């Protein structure tokens, strides 16, 4: 069995088999993709309180194949700044320091950790910050976060959330970070290419991954990847990147799929507060705005 696993996953498997994540967990898929994109690189992870640290399993075992530091909920980028500073101090001239990657949920990113995230971005620390966004506090059983989209029902918004999701990429772009991008587990090549692109850039790099969470979204585990593919196709979760906070590039053009195909499959949007026309309109307006931003850059 162990031989078969080694052959199947290879030495570079970041998330080892045997972790306890839910079936259909988008974060698990994203970790696997991240491990592949980083094959051959030396790196460590800093993970705040979130599903991603529970993934590690219980002491003294770990599901991760790289060194991991568990941080307090708000502190991942601060811990990572310390780790990265020491890597940089100990790097031989001409050598590239080992990468430091924050792996955080939307609660740790959009809510409790946003001051620390903002400061770390502003200082342009030499690290990669990845938010796997399941649009909910998964670990504590499914409460709203400021990444929860409007109309979604959570345990703390039982009638559907009335506020809209924060634009975290916009917030990062306003910090003029060297690189910020969205990723989807339905687009593995785009995922790999953008992670590899980020490795060649110095300073603060930010990623937002749309991470389906069947437990919180009230969706079928087997449909997770299909769901986020619909989110890309319909423009609900566009794939794009921002260089230096100014230069927007759309990586995958939406194909005109109706956003309601995405929303309609999730019981979290089945509440009375969800107005189909409003959801459709909001997605279209967001895409429109993004196209305008991307149009600002000269065509090459």
């Amino acid at each position, binding site marked *: 069995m162990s031989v078969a696993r080694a052959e199947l996953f290879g030495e570079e498997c970041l998330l080892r088999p045997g972790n306890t994540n839910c079936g259909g967990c988008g974060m698990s898929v994203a970790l696997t993709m991240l491990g592949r994109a980083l094959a051959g690189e*030396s790196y*460590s992870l*800093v993970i705040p309180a979130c599903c991603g*640290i*529970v993934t*590690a*399993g*219980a*002491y*003294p075992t*770990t599901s*991760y*194949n*790289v*060194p*991991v*530091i*568990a*941080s*307090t909920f*708000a*502190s991942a*980028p*601060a*811990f*990572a*700044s*310390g*780790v*990265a*500073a*020491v*890597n*940089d*101090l*100990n790097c031989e001239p001409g050598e590239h320091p*080992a990468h430091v990657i924050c792996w955080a949920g939307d609660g740790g990113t959009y809510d409790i950790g946003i*001051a*620390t995230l*903002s*400061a770390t971005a502003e*200082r342009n620390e030499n690290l990669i910050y990845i938010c796997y966004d399941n649009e909910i506090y998964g670990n504590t059983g499914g409460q709203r976060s400021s990444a929860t989209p409007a109309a979604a029902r959570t345990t703390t918004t039982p009638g559907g959330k009335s506020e809209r999701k924060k634009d975290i990429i916009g917030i990062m772009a306003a910090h003029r970070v060297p690189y910020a991008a969205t990723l989807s587990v339905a687009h593995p090549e785009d995922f790999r290419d953008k992670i590899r692109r980020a490795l060649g850039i110095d300073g603060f790099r930010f990623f937002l991954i749309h991470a389906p969470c069947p437990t919180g979204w009230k969706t079928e585990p087997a449909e997770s990847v299909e769901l986020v593919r619909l989110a890309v196709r319909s423009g609900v979760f566009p794939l794009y990147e921002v260089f230096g906070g100014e230069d927007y590039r759309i990586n995958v053009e939406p194909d005109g799929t109706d956003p309601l195909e995405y929303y309609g499959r999730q019981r979290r949007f089945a509440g009375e507060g969800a107005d189909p026309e409003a959801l459709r309109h909001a997605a279209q307006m967001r895409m429109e705005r993004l196209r305008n931003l991307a149009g600002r850059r000269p065509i090459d």
Partner: protein
Amino acid sequence: MNMQLVTGNHAAGHSLSLAGEANRGARGAVCGIYPITPQTEIVEYVARFPFSKGRVIPVESEHSAMGVCIGAALNGARAFTASSANGLAYMAENVLVAAFYRLPIVMAAVNRTLGPPWNIWADQGDTLMFRDFAWVQFYCDSNQDVADTALLAFRLAEDPRILLPVMVCMDAFIVSHTSMEVELASQEQVDRFLPPCSVPHRLDPQHPVTVGGMAFPPETLSQRMELDEALRRVPAVLEEHRAEFREVFGREVCGAVDSYRVADADRIVIASGTIATTVRDVVDEWRARGENVGMIRIKMFQPFPGREIRSLCAGVAKIGVVDRNYAAGTGGIFCHEVRANLQGQDGPFVQGYLAGVGGGDVVPGLVDEIMADLSCRTAAGEAVWKGVEP
């Protein structure tokens, strides 16, 4: 000898910086910094220091200042910071992590009243809030004591038998902003005194572990027991380091406790920080009048030097403890510890005095009143508030 007229903050900044620089041959130094009165000058000093292998990271909060230190220490660097009062309260969650991750981080803490009300004057309530956080804590009584204890702190924290963070505390303004003659260490001396910092459990790509993930009750219990064992080793290890300090610097640095004229005393006043200096003078005045009084200064609060206190207080009838701090509902925190440690011993009663809470001056006249009150008593009562406006 390098005698200079400097403030307590300057003394702390100097020693922290030289300790950081001394690790240039190893993984370097990292300091997360954030300002708060009255410690700001310490982090400003560190920010100006030309480290040859170090980085000072000006973060957005104390929580992150300690966060940076934790990440750096887990990556093998010598890490330190400084804070006060509400900065410490804000930092609290990560203060806990530093100890529970067994990281040899050193923090200079200038004791300031916790707000509200907003008050920048001396009160130990801020650092005593961390009584149970498994940090070693020293309360200094002079600028020289700050300069020397900060160096001793690194030696103790990084000792493989200890591996615990250490707090070096001083009274706001009375020490932090008052200039005294201090013999400042040279880089060459600090290089000799501090071996390269080694964090045995630092990140290692060849041996990937997860630091601080989930643990079940049995593993958590054994980690807590290991913490307890490390704390228990502190007093003996501290004595070894004090001897080495003497060898390198040619002077004594005070250890866990200091005592004054206690040998034949029937009454002892116990104090900490700068109040102990005042008590010492008042003891001389009372001795001149033929009164058998003495003084104990508790410098190391955590781990509490219970054994020393018990032996110094053997045969004493009355003990007064002066606290410049107030634990809501129960009185002075040093007093509690002294009582707990003398429990079961026949003899002395322990009376608490709350003096200088919120930063008021504890002048000799006030200590005089305390000694008079203690002398008249036949039993301990509720803690007595001193310095209250009539």
